Each structure stands twice: as structure tokens, then as C-alpha cells.
């Protein structure tokens, strides 16, 4: 009986189970809405399968367009979860407790759309398994296959581990389908031994996942940087892409948090302080992003290799100037001006900044992929690219399907970690006090 009481969520945290146990009608409407886009994307894909990639706007020499842009973008967003949550966990940032799960779910779900984007881009998706049958390990694309599959595995485990105690809570509440929670709960009874084991496993995964996540986006950048093409062949691309990935990842996390806070009335758990702290992180990333972008473009400009300059000017003042400068405004001007001041670093302020960053980071990927391809070294094969409805449909459909799956997750599992919040309330508060004390010189209590 004693353990039962311990396991049951505090009545205070009852709210967190609510989205799982009851579903409002508006959920179905919104879900249908997203699924409608999924259907559009599905038909677009069928059309592409039937007729070939000719139904897209791709051409010679712009062989890559929206799909590869989406690939880099989605893989970038996946850095929201695992990386941010792992770093916050390892730093003992106590404000992390109510946001880590929301972040980790983004990672796992969005990875499928990153991989999906590449599959959309293949001329022969039916031969996909050739990458296992006859792999060429000199190809950066194969490095991608390796690092992304490791990443997906690791971040799924990393999402699942902290989920076990919450699944057990749902199981004990008789949440349906009962078999799901019984099976996934792995017989969790919150014994001391189990808890110790779980915490150790989470700590190991948190350490492991950081180098894996960094390797993933570095390798994604190498797909471009390993070629000799103008403005792709750059050694800064690895760290530049990682910074951009974390940047767009934090931004997505903020947007998602604002939505679940609103929809599930979680104002007590996702407080302005969370948005403030994430907003500060986003600000740091915006400044870092600017630094990398500046370094990259200045180096190109100063070196003034003619073939690089052609691409450079097409971005700054040529055909791709509009996406380029929108990117600059949305990735730097808007977020920095909103986030640098305490007054505008509110929930609304951080959400506006985050939406803007996500638009900007998508455009950044676009202005990396397309301008280089449209202006190869030899002056003959120039070309321009504008997408067709097929690519736009699949892109929008991917975004909508991601949001649908995210909604679905919140209906099966608590989106704010119940046990971690409880642990914070019960254990972390005294722990922090002891920790802060340990930083200070020993108190000499006058013996009275």
C-alpha cells in the first residue's frame, strides 16, 4: 500500500494525465485537418512514383531542391530534443524537468521525416536497400545512413527510458489500451533498485547521445562540403550546420511548448521562466549563427575565387537575394531584437522569434542547396529552380503529418514527465540547497 501511494501522481500533477485519459472533440477536428495534408502529400508521392521525378521542378543542373532542403531542415530540428535535453540533464539544470519530454519526442518523430525526405528524393526508392546490399563507405551519404540510424536508435532509447515510470503510472490507473501500458511499463514498481538502474541508464544515454547528435549534423553538412562545388566545399560547414541545427531545434521546441501549454492548460508546468531560459539559449544560438554565417561569407568574398563569387553574388544581390535576405532578417534581426530585451523575452516574444527562426533556417538550407547547384563552375549548364505542387504538397504534408503524430503522442503518454516533476519537487529542491552550499566556504556557526 505504501508503494502505491508513492507511485500515484500527486493530485497536483493529476492535470498531466488528463490529455491521455480524456480527449476533446477539437482534437479530432485538428487531427483531421492535419491528415488532410497527409493525404495530399500521399497523392503527390503516388504521382511522383508513377511518372518519375519529372513531376518536380528539378532539372539540370539543379538536381536537388525542396526534398534535400527538407532533409537538412528536419534533421536539424531533431537536434531540439535529444541534444538540448541531454545537455540540460547533464548540467543539472533543474528547470529542464517539465520540458525534456516535449523535446525528446520532437527528435524521434522528426527524424522519420528527415529520412523520408531523402526517400522522396530518390529516383528509385524501390532500390533503397542497395545501400545495405552494396554500400560504398567512401560516400558521405552512406555516412549519413550510418549516423542517422545510430541517432534514431539512441534517441528512441533516450525517449523511452524516462517514459517508463510514467507508463507505469498510466498502467496503474488502468489507462487503455491496458496491454500497451503493461507491455511498455516493463513491470516498473519504482523500487529503489529500479530507480537507481534507471537513473544510471538515463545518465549513460545522455552522455552518449551528445556526440552522436553532433556527428549527425556534421555528416549532413559533409554531404555538401566533401564535393568541390563552389560555396559547398568549406571546412566550416560541419560546426556551422550543428549550430544551425541546435538553433532551429530550440526554436521548434519553444513553439511546441507554447502550443501544448495552451491546448492542455499546462500553465503551471510550462512557465514564463522556461520560455525565458530557452529564449536566452536561442539568443546565444542566434549570435553564434550570425558569427558562423559572417565568417563563411567573408572568407568567400575575400578569397574571391570567381566560381565562388558567382554563387556569392547570386545570394547577396542576384536571383536568390530575396530568400537570402529574408533568412538574414528572420534568423538574426528578428530573434535578436526580441530576445535581447527582458521586456520582449516573454512567451509571445519567444514564440514569434522561434517561428521566425524556423522560417529562416529553412531558407538557410534552401540558399545553401540551390544557388550552388544552379551555377556550376562551367558556365554552360546554368539553370534555375522553382518547385511544383508535388514538392510543395509533400513538404507541407510532412510538416502536418509530423504535427499529427506529435498530437497522437500526447494522447498516449504524458507530454510533461510526471515523475521527473515530482522528483524535482521532493528531492531536487533540498539537493540544490546542498549543492549551492557546497560552492560556498564552510559556514562557521557560532556555537551558542
Amino acid at each position: 500500500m505504501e508503494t502505491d501511494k508513492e507511485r500515484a501522481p500527486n493530485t497536483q500533477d493529476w492535470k498531466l494525465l488528463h490529455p491521455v485519459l480524456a480527449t476533446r472533440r477539437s482534437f479530432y477536428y485538428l487531427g483531421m485537418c492535419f491528415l488532410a495534408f497527409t493525404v495530399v502529400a500521399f497523392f503527390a508521392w503516388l504521382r511522383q512514383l508513377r511518372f518519375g521525378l519529372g513531376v518536380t521542378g528539378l532539372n539540370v543542373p539543379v538536381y536537388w531542391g525542396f526534398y534535400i532542403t527538407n532533409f537538412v531542415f528536419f534533421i536539424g530540428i531533431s537536434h531540439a530534443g535529444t541534444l538540448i535535453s541531454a545537455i540540460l540533464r547533464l548540467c543539472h539544470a533543474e528547470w529542464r524537468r517539465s520540458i525534456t519530454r516535449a523535446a525528446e519526442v520532437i527528435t524521434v518523430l522528426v527524424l522519420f521525416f528527415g529520412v523520408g525526405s531523402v526517400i522522396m528524393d530518390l529516383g528509385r526508392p524501390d532500390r533503397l536497400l542497395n545501400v545495405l546490399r552494396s554500400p560504398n563507405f567512401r560516400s558521405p551519404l552512406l555516412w549519413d545512413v550510418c549516423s542517422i540510424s545510430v541517432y534514431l536508435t539512441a534517441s528512441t532509447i533516450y525517449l523511452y527510458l524516462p517514459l517508463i515510470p510514467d507508463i507505469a503510472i498510466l498502467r496503474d490507473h488502468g489507462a487503455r489500451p491496458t496491454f500497451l501500458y503493461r507491455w511498455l511499463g516493463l513491470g516498473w514498481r519504482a523500487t529503489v533498485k529500479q530507480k537507481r538502474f534507471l537513473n544510471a541508464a538515463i545518465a549513460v544515454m545522455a552522455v552518449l547521445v551528445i556526440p552522436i547528435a553532433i556527428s549527425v549534423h556534421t555528416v549532413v553538412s559533409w554531404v555538401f562540403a566533401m564535393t568541390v562545388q563552389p560555396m559547398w566545399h568549406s571546412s566550416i560547414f560541419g560546426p556551422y550546420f550543428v549550430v544551425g541545427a541546435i538553433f532551429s531545434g530550440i526554436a521548434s521546441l519553444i513553439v511546441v511548448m507554447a502550443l501544448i501549454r495552451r491546448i492542455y492548460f499546462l500553465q503551471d508546468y510550462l512557465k514564463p521562466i522556461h520560455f525565458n531560459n530557452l529564449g536566452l539559449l536561442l539568443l546565444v544560438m542566434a549570435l553564434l549563427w550570425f558569427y558562423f554565417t559572417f565568417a563563411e561569407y567573408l572568407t568567400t568574398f575575400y578569397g574571391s575565387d570567381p566560381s565562388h563569387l558567382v554563387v556569392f553574388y547570386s545570394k547577396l544581390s542576384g536571383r536568390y537575394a530575396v530568400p537570402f535576405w529574408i533568412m538574414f532578417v528572420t534568423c538574426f534581426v528578428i530573434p535578436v531584437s526580441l530576445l535581447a530585451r527582458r521586456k520582449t523575452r516573454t512567451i509571445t516574444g519567444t514564440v514569434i522569434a522561434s517561428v521566425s527562426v524556423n522560417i529562416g533556417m529553412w531558407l538557410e538550407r534552401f540558399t545553401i542547396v540551390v544557388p550552388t547547384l544552379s551555377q556550376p563552375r562551367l558556365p554552360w549548364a546554368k539553370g534555375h529552380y522553382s518547385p511544383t505542387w508535388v514538392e510543395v504538397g509533400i513538404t507541407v504534408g510532412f510538416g502536418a503529418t509530423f504535427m499529427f503524430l506529435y498530437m497522437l503522442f500526447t494522447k498516449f503518454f504524458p507530454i510533461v514527465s510526471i515523475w521527473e516533476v515530482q522528483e524535482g519537487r521532493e528531492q531536487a529542491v533540498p539537493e540544490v540547497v546542498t549543492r549551492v552550499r557546497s560552492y560556498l566556504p564552510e559556514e562557521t556557526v557560532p556555537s551558542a
Partner: protein
Amino acid sequence: MPRWGMVIDLAKCTACQACVVACQTENNVPCVPPEQAARGRIISWISVLPQLEGEYPRLTMRPTPLPCVHCDNPPCIRVCPVGATGINPEGVVRQIFARCIGCRYCTNACPYTRRMFNWYRPEFPGEFTEALNPDVSVRPKGVVEKCTLCHHRLQKARDQARAQNRELAEGDYIPACVEICPAGAMYFGDLDDPNSTVATLARGRRAFRLLEELGTKPKVIYLAQGEWSGGDGQGART
């Protein structure tokens, strides 16, 4: 072992496009309908490209036939995730159509943009279907294809030489584009044989290669008409 290479004399080329047509028929290169061609979907393994020189009114157009240059150090073969493209011991960069997954990484890694993608199922107008070359497979939609230096001709020439119990001689094997060239602007042969025509021409003072500075070591060598000024990307700003 020979190292096959091509020499193209730009002073002789008349831009008649015979090489393009010969390649098209020899290798079953699909005919792209005009509206697709306007969208940049032309497939041609060799193209005669205009290189403009000087300024108006003293403007000259120098035609430059450009097949795959068959680099000795090809950037395209490294990046293929499934090893569907490779360089054979005789220096020919080849594509395995049946293995290609159509990711188009090689097309993007090629600095010469000489790799083509099948955007649709290949189509041949009525009479062409009957004139397809039985020695060359028709590529399915969704794969990358490229110049093979008419490799099927090499196989035939080898068989013939073996049947006649002799070594392969110069001129036994030449690709369709070289064979057809009415201006005699194209030469083909073994670059490693110091006495071959191509090796002699390649040593000459007029010889140069495209984008030599990238270290790709192309085996298609041009003979300049005057001083070469192309390929530096400068012409692109206009």
C-alpha cells in the same frame, strides 16, 4: 593496359552537332520532348557548347564539344552511396544502371555537369523504337546515365581482334562521336601509348584540359584555337 582518352581540336570543330546525334542514336539516349527540354531536362551524353569570346562587335563563338571527360580522379564515383559508378582499369568512368538508386549525388558532385538523370521513363518516337541499338541497354526512369565512351564498341573490337588472332590496333575501337566527326576534329586512342595520335596531340602546346586546377585529371583533352579563356566562371555574371 590502355588508358582511353579523347582529343578535340577546337580549331577544327564546326559546331555541326553530328557528334551529338551520333551519340544519341548509338547509345539509345531518349528523345526529350520540347516542353521538357525547355525545363532543362535534356539528356545528351555529349553537347556542343558555345563559348563566347571577346566583346561586341568583335565577338566570336567557339563551339566546344563536351562529353564526360572521364577523369582519372573522378569526384563522382567517390560519393555514390551504393557504388553504382566506378572507374575501370582502362580509365572509363562507368555507371551501373541496374544498381543506381537515383539520389543524384554524383550529378551534383561532377564539376562538369556531365551526368544525366532520367526524369521520366525514356521515350522514343515510333520509328526510333525499331532503330534502337541492341548493344546498349535502355535506361529505366529514375537512374543516372552518362557517356561510356561507347564501351560496347570496345567489347566488339576486342572480340573481333581475338577472332583474327591479333592485338587491338589503333583505330579498331573509336566511339560514335569521334567516328562521325566530319571535320575530323576528334581523335581517340590510348593515352598511355606514347606513339598514339592522342598521346602525341596531348603533349602539344595547344593542349589543355577543362578545370585542370581541380585535380580531376580529365582524359578529354582540348586543343586550343588561340588562348583559352573559358571555364573560369567569369562569363556567368552576365
